[in-house]
């Protein structure tokens, strides 16, 4: 049992007092940002990246893992108590969870979410520990053309499958790839998109880009939509579950895990699709279908398990292939690079102790989250009473500090502001942020693989198709991209009423769920009349 002994070594590393402390800090921070709509683990890790330079990489990643899982837990609290999903992956939870809370069953909803997340996270992490080494064995045999194909698949699939509008997704991806191009060409040494500015020759630092897009963009957006009618948190005591609730929850937990992990592990992953699939499945299989829409516990248990299993699944391509499929994983990939660790299939071989400590810390983080979330859920809801000017002032402070500390260049602060304005505009026009971040982080790596393949084939584009896996992936890619077109044609030719009814029913909630993917809370912002325009005089002349 090689996996087992490596994992036990990982536990030994992760359970040292210092690392345990970082895990605790991570899960607490993660839960807090997960609870707050608009803030997420990706932003938090980006903000903390410069601060963690001084740490051991292992400690830093243990903390990041805690933040990542914590964000998944925290999101459900807001969904259930406030009906405002803190995270894109808890959008579906809000459907039944908030109904349950309104019906006075908030404690049970929180309990099934927390315990379900724990169960799914633990199983998902175990699957990660088992499957990641297998994927690695397969991955080391792949050459550049296959890698290039897999990365292109990941980028395009994430862009095309998630998000409400493909056009916006691809616009965002294009922006990201363009930002990734800035700097010196790795092969010929030519300067690209530097506009004669020598400070741009090294390219844009990923910390600056991520912090600007996530933190500054979000802060500007919130500042522009400051006044809003306060929402109401459903009061709740300590979460608990009755016998009946356990009986109705355990199957959805396992089914949710079964949906979540594979979807998370796929290059086109993300937690949104499996949570939705889980919801639909539970609705169909439930013995109490009449309760759906009125607060069915299955509708909370399944999706919550699915999103945590997906979170674990996402770690598989990240650790085994160096391929991130969501924003948090992308920032973690950037963190690997910052620490001088080469992500990819060799990660397990070269950085074995770190990787296994990371996986062990996922188990630990999960357990800690259960401990701090079950008794403390009402306390987390209190974070929502924090006045946002203070909150965002703190975030901007850290953002500026972080961006400056990367290179100690004032020029980076200028970049921070420009890219922050870009982030604001993207939110304003509904462009998803994820493709941009993936583009920035994966763009240069994809280019590297492309150049390598082309060099191997002496510049012949046919070299890109020299490996069978690459060909298969391109076919899959073509199907994903052509799918809406084919689907439309099919429906036009055979307007079967049953099918189209199913299709529209299937599409409608997904759109709702996806429309909220990047900035769910802001829709509500825009609608609420609150911001009547007199933001200037904050009315603070009190004595």
């Amino acid at each position, binding site marked *: 049992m090689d996996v087992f002994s490596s994992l036990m070594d990982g536990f030994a590393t992760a359970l040292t007092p210092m690392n345990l402390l970082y895990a605790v800090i991570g899960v607490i921070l993660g839960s807090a940002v997960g609870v*707050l709509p608009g803030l997420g683990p990706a932003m938090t890790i980006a903000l903390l990246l410069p601060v963690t330079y001084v740490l051991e990489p292992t400690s830093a990643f243990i903390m990041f893992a805690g933040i990542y899982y914590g964000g998944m837990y925290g999101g459900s609290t807001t969904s259930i108590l406030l009906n405002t999903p803190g995270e894109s992956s808890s959008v579906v939870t809000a459907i039944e969870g908030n109904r349950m809370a309104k019906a006075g069953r908030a404690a049970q909803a929180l309990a099934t979410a927390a315990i379900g997340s724990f169960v799914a996270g633990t199983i998902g992490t175990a699957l990660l520990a088992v499957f990641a080494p297998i994927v690695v064995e397969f991955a080391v045999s792949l050459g550049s053309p296959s890698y290039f194909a897999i990365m292109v698949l990941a980028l395009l699939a994430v862009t095309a499958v998630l998000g409400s509008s493909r056009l916006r997704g691809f616009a965002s991806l294009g922006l990201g790839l363009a930002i990734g191009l800035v700097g010196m060409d790795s092969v010929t040494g030519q300067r690209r998109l530097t506009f004669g500015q020598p400070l741009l020759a090294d390219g844009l630092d990923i910390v600056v880009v991520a912090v600007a897009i996530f933190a500054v963009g979000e802060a500007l957006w919130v500042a522009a939509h400051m006044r809003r*009618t*306060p929402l*109401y948190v459903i009061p709740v005591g300590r979460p608990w579950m009755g016998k009946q609730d356990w009986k109705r929850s355990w199957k959805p937990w396992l089914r949710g895990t079964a949906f979540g992990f594979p979807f998370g592990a796929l290059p086109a992953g993300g937690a949104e699709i499996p949570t939705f699939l889980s919801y639909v499945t539970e609705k169909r299989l439930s013995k109490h279908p009449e309760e759906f829409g009125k607060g069915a516990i299955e509708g909370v248990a399944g999706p919550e398990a699915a999103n945590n299993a997906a979170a674990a699944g996402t770690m598989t391509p990240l650790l085994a292939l160096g391929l991130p499929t969501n924003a948090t994983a992308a920032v973690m990939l950037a963190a690997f690079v910052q620490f001088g660790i080469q992500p990819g299939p060799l990660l397990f071989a070269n950085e074995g102790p770190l990787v296994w400590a990371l996986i062990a810390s996922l188990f630990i983080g999960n357990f800690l989250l259960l401990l701090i979330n079950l008794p403390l859920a009402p306390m987390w809801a209190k974070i929502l*009473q924090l006045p946002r000017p203070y909150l965002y002032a703190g975030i901007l402070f850290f953002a500026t500090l972080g961006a400056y500390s990367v290179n100690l260049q004032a020029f980076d602060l200028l970049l921070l502001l420009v890219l922050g304005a870009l982030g604001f505009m993207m939110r304003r026009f509904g462009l998803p942020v994820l493709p941009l971040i993936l583009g920035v982080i994966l763009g240069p790596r994809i280019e590297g693989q492309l150049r390598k393949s082309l060099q191997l084939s002496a510049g012949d584009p046919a070299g890109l198709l020299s490996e069978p896996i690459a060909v298969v992936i391109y076919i899959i890619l073509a199907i994903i991209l052509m799918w809406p077109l084919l689907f439309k044609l099919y429906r036009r030719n055979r307007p079967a009423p049953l099918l189209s009814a199913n299709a529209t029913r299937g599409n409608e909630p997904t759109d709702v769920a996806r429309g909220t993917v990047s900035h769910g809370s802001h829709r509500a912002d825009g609608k609420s009349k609150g911001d009547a325009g*007199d933001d200037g*005089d*904050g*009315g603070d002349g*009190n004595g």
Partner: protein
Amino acid sequence: MTIVVGYVPTPEGEAALTQAIAEARKTNTTLLVINSSKGDALVDNRYAQEPEIQSIEDRLATQGIDHVIKQPVRGHDAAAEVLDAAEEHNAELIVIGLRRRTPVGKLIMGSTSQRILLEADCPVLAVKAS
């Protein structure tokens, strides 16, 4: 002429409202209920929700009091909202609820009631929770 009452969903706010209703009945004037939030936090427990407002509305209606309920969210603090409303409607009386505050607490947090007491141009009736 009107009576302005600063309402918050707490025992103090409740006491203020009860007192204000009594005053309004005595003098037969319009009662203006102000419940405001700065609107800068996602959740504000001092901002009354729909059902609460509805029950106040019903209560005032059954007592036959001419009333207006306002819930401004404009980024001003509660004292400013109450004072603004009093000035605008030329109020004859402001009713507020007082709670116990330690001197240190007041130093740090400031006091909405104190500001209203000091800055109002009309009589202020301050009541405590029973």
